[in-house]
């Protein structure tokens, strides 16, 4: 299948700010394919982000785009969606933005099961500020603020989303480029809160501090650690040690927030 990238790229806004080898560009292409697969209308599509490298994505997409403050994407997006439930609302951003400073907004958007799709690019680091550790930096890894190795345990973003109440949760990696668009498209079509965690890489601020000799090495790790959920079902806990599950991790149908609120309006008007 061929995709209409040109339709969704905002004229005159490329090149992007991302470093050579960064996974965010792969995710953006996947997102564009998903927009194309879903046949969305530009004027009816809002793309909302926070602050950070990944959050610069909306500027490159020709839609209604909102680059908010650090961590606040889900909260701004909730306002947009509540005001205009007929719009397709997509959030995007990084792991620090979404799960540290924006963690509260992230879990509550999941809890409400509001109809939006959150594409969370997890590159395990604060890239834009130069490589400080995030809640997703592996324990022991080096960051500019963990010169002796990271003492912190990590968040499992997908588990967090499922625990908080998101009704569609999927994970893939920047290596698995063709899966990105499929999962995001499924998330967009799903009625309710969809979280797509895309594990990607930051060669500039994470790779070079953690003995990755090249971007290819980082991509190889993404390839080798990813285990599709179907395959994982046949593997032992020992075999799954250090692996990440990919594919649709969780899906259920539950009442969607804006539809629930429409019932509130009907009740108030009838009373």
């Amino acid at each position, binding site marked *: 299948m061929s995709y209409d990238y040109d339709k969704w790229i905002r004229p005159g806004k490329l090149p992007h700010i991302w470093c050579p080898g960064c996974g965010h560009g792969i995710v953006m292409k996947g997102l564009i394919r998903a927009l194309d697969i879903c046949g969305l209308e530009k004027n009816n599509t809002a793309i909302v982000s926070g602050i950070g490298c990944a959050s610069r994505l909306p500027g490159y997409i020709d839609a209604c785009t909102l*680059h908010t*403050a650090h961590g606040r994407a889900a909260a701004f997006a909730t*306002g947009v969606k509540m*005001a205009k439930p007929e*719009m397709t609302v997509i959030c995007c951003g990084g792991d620090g933005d979404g799960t540290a400073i924006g963690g509260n907004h992230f879990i509550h958007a999941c809890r409400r099961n509001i109809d939006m799709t959150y594409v969370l690019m997890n590159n395990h680091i604060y890239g834009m500020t130069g490589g400080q550790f995030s809640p997703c930096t592996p324990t022991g890894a080096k960051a500019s603020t963990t010169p002796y190795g990271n003492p912190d345990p990590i968040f499992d973003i997908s588990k967090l989303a499922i625990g908080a109440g998101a009704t569609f949760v999927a994970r893939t990696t920047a290596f698995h480029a063709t899966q990105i668009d499929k999962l995001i498209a499924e998330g967009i079509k799903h009625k309710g809160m969809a979280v797509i965690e895309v594990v990607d890489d930051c060669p500039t601020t994470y790779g070079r501090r953690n003995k990755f000799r090249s971007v290819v090495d980082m991509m190889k790790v993404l390839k080798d650690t990813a285990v599709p959920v179907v395959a994982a079902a046949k593997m032992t806990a020992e075999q799954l040690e250090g692996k990440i599950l990919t594919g649709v991790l969780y899906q259920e149908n539950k009442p969607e927030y804006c539809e629930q609120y429409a019932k509130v309006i009907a009740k108030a008007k009838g009373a």
Partner: protein
Amino acid sequence: MAKKVAVIQGNTACALGAVYAGCNFFGGYPITPSTEVAEVLSEELPKVGGKFIQMEDEIAAMASVIGASLAGSKALTATSGPGVSLKQELIGYACIAEVPCVIINVMRGGPSTGMPTGPGQSDVQQAKWGTHGDHATIALVPSTIPEIFSETVRAFNLAEQYRMPVQVLFDEIVGHMREPIEFPEPGELEVINRTAPTVPPEKYKPYDTSFGDVPPLAAFGSNYRFHVTGLNKAQDGFPTTKAEYVDAEERRQVRKVESPENAANIEKNEEFKCDDAEVLIFAYGSTARSARYAVNKLREQGIKAGMFRPITLWPFPEKRVAALGKQVKAIVVPEMNLGQMILEVERVTKGSCALGGVHRVDGEPINPDQIMSKVKEVM
């Protein structure tokens, strides 16, 4: 037909004023003493097809308001004390991105958790300077229940007209006090909505100054699509670090409020017995209620007192206060803080008259006797 009359508290008047103004989105978080604004709107907004959402925190409430406004809603939040501190980041966002919205601050004592159930007026400088960076501020300070209603309407009008956040500050006293109000009929008070663009969608720029200092604002989900960011931006809405663009945009955003012409449109004051006054009481919000009583009492005692009451606190009514400073021998400024607006009075009167402050931060209102004593002391 007789108008509808009720005895209601200030917070209820605020909520009903918002509905009158066409508010159709409220994002909030519970906090004393502002919570009744949210409670009333949770009941009233869905009746008119509006949306009410209680968000996970104060920051999220402010974020949802900005998001909803960009999608075309007339949006409101209400908070107090610590909630206002938390909202400052995104009040700044609404300033730079020029998103119309209204923030109600029912002031209590502070800092920090302070005295949640007691009144205060200690956020008046925060209203001006609370968020980081240079920016203009519009803040209104009603002092009666009917005025809370009408000033909430005016706050929406100014937010829509100037495309920016507008703050309404009253305090716990008037927030919770009950007073009679005669509700204005629909159409009786002016209701202003933002100017929508008329250019073809492909020509639209969200910060196009060829339309003046307040560029038309489209809505997400309309025929127009555009980019919004909290970064310094050029007229097309996209980030820039080019010095000439950044400088021009920052200055325009201040000018749209503080230019003499616009400031005059935003300014609103009450002058009570000021014509022949020899001593002036500069009072705002609930404190002005005591000041009015004090003026009458002082006049009975042969002292020519008057009251100047700003209803728009920011931008500060510089010219009028400066002129009155030349007319009177002294100005007394009662405030439920340790001296905030007196600094502005001092700045603009430039030593032309004596100054005296009356300050309370114990959660009790300033009574007329305290004001009268200070007047006699400075005369």
